[in-house]
């Protein structure tokens, strides 16, 4: 029986957050601090012909104006991808802090640092810019045309960010021809926005040759590397810190957020003062990374007995004006699309394509929600054609441990079958499926299944130190972005070492004093850092016991650490006393936990949704979602539930309401919480999280991860439920009243045609 594993330990930061004491980047005040504002392009694509900042610079209170002329001309990628990327891929290095070209509405043109925000805002209005507008591309398919204008023509001769990701297994063409039933379709995905509560912000102070930056970044070390690269500074002279809390992230700031860190660093260097930039909510909505929208073409074929036999997919993702995570998202989409089900013959090609809209980057799921929407649509279509229950078809074809699949790592644990069964049972699959009726309000249930990965071939590195009072300090370069995993890591530490959890302090979110870590993203932190911690804790324990054995003249094998004391010898030793004795006489107690090899493991999930569709208004009301997740082992079940519930609500938004609308000029319509329809408190349905445990042998105490998984199959489940309710399978989300009404009207024709026979693919 573990003392701290599988326990609902209360979050160590909760007290600070409920009392209002918690500090975020928005709250940072540094003496002498200036305030920054950014001038942004009104054009989707233009060359800057003339830029005159003299009036702005002359305004009393203005201490610095930054433009392309006085900032480093060093190409970078604003995400931590610059610092870490899976082998074989190259990051898109296509951003400058400021450039002579602007490539989307809102692209940065210049920035001002002044003694107040009002003065900075006024200075921005005094900057004179002459633009030469250029033709703008808004759709990725247009950007692939032969004669399309090049958005990064100065560095490459096409509009694909980094390259195309390809997957091949078996022989797709041959396999496709051998299938007894096939389905093909194109799905269209919208732009979704993270809309985290704390807008991007950063504070920078350049002094004494050192650059200090406070930021809500998810990757302090990644950000540090980007800054070192841009400013040609020695990385060791840069310190990046979370203050320590981050007001949500969801992938929007794995590295820079809205380029704030780079901009304030420039302004601090130019002015000689610390500088703070806080993006307005409108800026956060309209200029910072979004989820990739785009088109996914899917082909899925099976044998008459229901075995999947051929899978083909092309993904055209709209990555916007800058590549950021582009190639990674395309790769993740392909990898995830091909690793839920056994299929011997696979073809995948996917790319992130430049257009002149706000850049797309990382958002919880990272290509997986897009993949699953396409795949599950196809699976349900085949189920219909084969007349096999959709649940049964998934159970039949799901990947099992060590199955052949196209990924570079094996499937080492899965309880997806259990997830699917529990989700279906708890939504009332057999009682509710196919009972929509013909009335105005029609109900239906649907299921979606998927996977993800806990980090990708990543390493983790932590250091542990026994303090002179016997407490244990853990140093990690990871960040607490709200998930609470820091508390789970405390639990792992206390369990591995054998001390009271109150004796464990995790120090995170600061590049100074912590080893390199890629940051909190990719559903990796509990898995990777947890592994590194238990490795280090084991080693530290060994040091302590050896020392105690020597001090007491007994064998170390007889000794153990329990509740902060060494037990089993001639006397008990208090850890604090031991540490102080050791420090004076013999040794210091510290250990490194460094992964010996890069490991990737797979969490799994299945969501079942019940909806009610009002065929008169087109309103899709989600009544209930059952979200069953194989997380390996839940170190802290309450935190895992929180991740699932939060993910599901974002997934419901993705499926039913959220989309960023961009007009023909490239302007974003949804620039506020009242124009972007994410779910409010009053919109939440019943959500039932179900934790399924499969025990991952390579995870800390069997744990994998859950962070991104909570929204991966939700949209697919909801679309499936809407099909059960109305007979219409929507290939485009979100299912807004407008879209649903149009689809239901069109379906009156297709439904009739289906009655007359023939195969119709609902479009």
């Amino acid at each position, binding site marked *: 029986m573990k003392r701290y594993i599988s326990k*609902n330990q*209360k*979050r160590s*930061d*909760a*007290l*600070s*957050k*409920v*009392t*209002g*004491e*918690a*500090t*975020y980047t*928005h*709250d940072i005040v540094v003496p002498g601090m200036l305030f920054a504002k950014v001038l942004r392009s009104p054009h989707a694509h233009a060359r800057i012909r003339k830029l005159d900042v003299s009036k702005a610079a002359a305004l009393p209170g203005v201490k610095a104006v930054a433009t392309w002329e006085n900032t480093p001309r060093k190409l970078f990628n604003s995400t931590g991808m610059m610092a870490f990327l899976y082998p074989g891929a190259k990051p898109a290095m296509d951003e400058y802090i400021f450039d002579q070209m602007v490539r989307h509405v809102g692209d940065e043109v210049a920035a001002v640092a002044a003694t107040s925000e009002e003065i900075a805002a006024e200075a921005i209005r005094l900057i004179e810019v002459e633009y030469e507008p250029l033709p703008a591309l808004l759709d990725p398919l247009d950007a692939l045309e032969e004669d399309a204008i090049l958005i990064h023509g100065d560095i490459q001769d096409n509009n694909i960010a980094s390259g195309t990701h390809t997957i091949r297994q078996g022989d797709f063409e041959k396999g496709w021809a051998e299938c007894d039933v096939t389905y093909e379709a194109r799905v269209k995905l919208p732009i979704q926005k*993270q*809309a*985290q*509560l*704390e*807008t991007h912000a950063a504070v920078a102070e350049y002094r004494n040759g050192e650059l200090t930056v406070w930021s809500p970044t998810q990757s302090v070390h990644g950000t540090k590397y980007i800054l070192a690269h841009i400013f040609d500074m020695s990385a060791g002279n840069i310190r990046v810190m979370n203050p320590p*809390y*981050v*007001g*949500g*992230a*969801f992938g929007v700031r794995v590295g820079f957020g809205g380029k704030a860190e780079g901009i304030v660093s420039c302004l601090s260097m130019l002015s000689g003062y610390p500088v703070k930039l806080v993006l*307005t*909510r409108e800026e956060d909505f309209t200029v910072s990374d979004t989820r990739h929208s785009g088109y996914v073409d899917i082909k899925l074929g099976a044998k008459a007995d229901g075995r999947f036999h051929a899978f083909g997919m092309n993904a055209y993702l709209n990555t916007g004006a800058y590549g950021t995570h582009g190639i990674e998202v395309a790769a993740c989409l392909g990898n995830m699309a091909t690793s839920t089900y056994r299929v011997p013959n696979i073809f995948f090609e996917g790319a992130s394509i430049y257009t002149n809209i706000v850049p797309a980057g990382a958002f919880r799921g990272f290509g997986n929600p897009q993949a699953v929407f396409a795949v599950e649509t196809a699976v349900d279509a085949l189920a219909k054609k084969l007349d096999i229950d959709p649940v049964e078809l998934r159970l039949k074809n799901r990947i099992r441990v060590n199955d052949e699949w196209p990924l570079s790592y094996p499937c080492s644990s899965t309880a997806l079958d259990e997830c699917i069964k529990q989700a279906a049972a708890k939504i009332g699959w057999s009682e509710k499926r196919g009972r929509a009726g013909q009335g105005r309000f029609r109900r239906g249930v649907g299921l979606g299944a998927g996977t993800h990965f806990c980090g990708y071939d990543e390493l983790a590195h932590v250091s542990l130190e026994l303090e002179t009072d016997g407490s244990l300090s853990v140093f990690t370069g990871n960040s607490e*972005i*709200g*998930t*609470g995993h820091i508390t789970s890591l405390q639990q792992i530490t206390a369990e591995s070492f054998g001390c009271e959890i109150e004796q464990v302090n995790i120090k995170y979110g600061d590049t100074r004093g912590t080893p390199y870590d890629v940051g909190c993203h990719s559903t990796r932190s509990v898995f990777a850092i947890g592994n590194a911690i238990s490795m280090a804790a084991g080693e530290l324990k060994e040091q302590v016991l050896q020392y105690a054995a020597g001090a007491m003249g007994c064998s170390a094998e007889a000794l153990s650490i329990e509740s902060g004391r060494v037990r089993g010898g001639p006397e008990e030793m208090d850890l604090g006393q031991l540490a102080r004795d050791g420090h004076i006489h013999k040794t210091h107690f510290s250990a490194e936990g460094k992964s010996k090899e890069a490991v990737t493991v797979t969490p799994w999930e299945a969501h079942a949704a019940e909806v009610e569709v009002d065929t008169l208004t087109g309103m899709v009301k989600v009544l209930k979602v059952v979200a069953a997740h194989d997380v390996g082992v839940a170190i802290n079940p*309450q*935190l895992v*539930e*929180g991740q699932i*519930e*939060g*993910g*599901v*609500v*974002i997934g419901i938004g993705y499926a039913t309401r959220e989309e960023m609308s961009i007009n023909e000029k490239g302007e974003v319509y949804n620039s*506020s*919480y*009242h124009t972007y329809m*994410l*779910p*409010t*408190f*009053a919109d*939440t349905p019943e*959500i039932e999280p179900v934790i399924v445990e499969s025990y991952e042998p390579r995870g800390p105490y069997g744990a994998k991860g859950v962070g991104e998984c909570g929204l991966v199959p939700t949209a697919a489940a909801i679309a499936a439920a809407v099909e059960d309710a109305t007979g219409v399978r929507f290939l485009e989300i979100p299912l807004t009243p407008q879209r649903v009404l149009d689809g239901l009207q069109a379906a009156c024709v297709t439904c009739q045609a289906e009655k007359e026979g023939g195969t119709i693919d609902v479009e």
Partner: protein
Amino acid sequence: MGEQYVLKVNGKEYALRTGGGQMLADVLRDELHLIGTKKGCCQGECGACTVILDGKAVNSCMIPVAKAVGADILTIEGLQTEDGLHPLQKAFIEEGAVQCGFCTPGMIMSAKALLDEEANPTSAQIQEALSGNICRCTGYVKIEKAVQKASEELRKEG
């Protein structure tokens, strides 16, 4: 403006002198260093800046500070007493209703305003009372549980 005025916040009176055009949220944060009240949008749309003004939950980012003169203002910092945390604060911790925490102070203040008026709220009443507080992390589920739990506690306390 440069005029002197008095704000009553969390039971204390503060003499302040400030220029025109300031919103209550800015004065609370920048002058009184009560940073618990967060600015998530500065448009009165997200509820992160919610404080209780004369018993009513309002978005402090859209209240000119002069409008708050003479009123009783309660912020998150004023919730706990010498006896300890308010049942809402305790319940938020216990029920796992806190994730990134940026929405938390405003959320708790809206919940307080609700419980002050309705001691035994239904699920629908909780959802409606908090419908002006956006949370992107929790999906609202555990927040609702926390408010229910706090209302039970408060009814026990009598």
